[in-house]
């Protein structure tokens, strides 16, 4: 089968409109992951054994099971208990939840890297737990985490095609729709691959810059 440049040019706008959804899902998912991840990380450090153990188990469980199945779970099971979510919302929640468990590890590493003396000083100056976290610990913990977080952002971007399985029309779905209506697989599939590769390569350059800017290389 020959590569047809005209056909490729014709379907590019359709794929790019899918790419917009892909990027939107990535950004929203990342926001959910960043917030939930912090919640997981803080709960895991809780002095209440039951809270910290339960959180650990939940985090381990989510990390140990496939994102695709979690997406199915959110999209198909939740409506049974009366919670019907639009596909994109379900996808964003699913991806956010999944990557929150990874983000939690990054937060944990960053928080543990803050010297003990800072905690003790916060205690000595009689700061509340809230003040300690917001004014002392997090401002020191977050900058070194940036490269690792960006790494997971990129990983999440590459997992967005899974959303196609729960009927979100992102770039991969557009490619499949094109392929199924025209019976030409070579151009749409290859173009999707090329778009992913181009964005990833650009992001890698950005990532290197972040690593230089914030010092520590991701482990």
């Amino acid at each position: 089968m020959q590569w047809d440049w005209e056909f490729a040019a014709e379907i590019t706008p359709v794929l790019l409109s899918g790419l917009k959804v892909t990027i939107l899902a990535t950004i929203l998912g990342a926001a959910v992951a960043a917030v939930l991840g912090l919640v997981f990380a803080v709960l895991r450090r809780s002095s209440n054994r039951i809270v910290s153990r339960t959180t650990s188990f939940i985090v381990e469980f989510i990390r140990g099971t496939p994102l695709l199945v979690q997406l199915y779970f959110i999209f198909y099971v939740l409506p049974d208990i009366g919670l019907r979510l639009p596909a994109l919302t379900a996808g964003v929640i699913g991806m956010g939840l999944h990557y929150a468990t990874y983000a939690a590890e990054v937060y944990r590493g960053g928080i543990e890297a803050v010297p003990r003396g800072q905690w003790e000083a916060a205690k000595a100056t009689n700061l509340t737990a809230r003040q300690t976290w917001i004014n002392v610990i997090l401002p020191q913990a977050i900058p070194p985490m940036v490269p690792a977080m960006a790494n997971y952002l990129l990983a999440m971007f590459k997992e967005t095609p899974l959303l196609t399985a729960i009927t979100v029309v992102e770039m991969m779905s557009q490619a499949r729709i094109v392929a199924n209506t025209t019976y030409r697989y070579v151009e749409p599939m290859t173009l999707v691959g090329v778009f992913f590769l181009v964005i990833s390569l650009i992001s890698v350059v950005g990532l290197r810059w972040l690593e230089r800017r914030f010092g520590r290389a991701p482990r």
Partner: protein
Amino acid sequence: MGDWPGYLLLILQGTWVTVQLTVMGCAVALVVAFVAGLGRIAPWPPVRWLATAFIEFFRGTSIFVQLFWIYFVLPMLGVSLTPMQAGVTALGLNVGAYGAEVVRGAILAVPRDQHEATVALNLSRWQRLRHVILPQALPLMLPTFGNNAIELLKATAVVSLISLSDMTFQAQIVRSQTGNTLVPFVTILILYFLMALALSTLIRRIERRVTRGLDGVR
């Protein structure tokens, strides 16, 4: 609705497919990781470029896209693969590309004087790798390899989308036949989690094994 043992059997058949995919995928990934990882630090520039291009390509595009490309596009170029072969190939190449960076990192982390000592002792290239470098690099690779293996297990769910009847695919069948969504999905979530636990236990055991006898070194 009543035939639960039958449905459970269906899911367990899917579990077997998932296990096969994971084991074969890991085997391919391991080979790919070492070939590409060693290629990345080979003394010949063309080999290095080739390995770098391979790694960047498979890390830069999504596993999902790779799988679809292998399954739908390759046949049009004259290479037809069964869903199982396509799945193992995609998983092996993708995870192998990530593993290659681990291999490279671990080998470079072996102290320089160890490399120099092997040269001084006039060991051949293969002897250096086999007897000095790898025994020290392997323990560094294992924890990350363990994580990669779990990522591979999780990625196997994607092959259900090219109609390979793995655990996720079977759960969808049970869902469509019974109309019950909760039971099949919870069942496979638990099964996936147990498999991930088994994998991490296995890796920890291997880790203990290969670090035996390295006490004095590190």
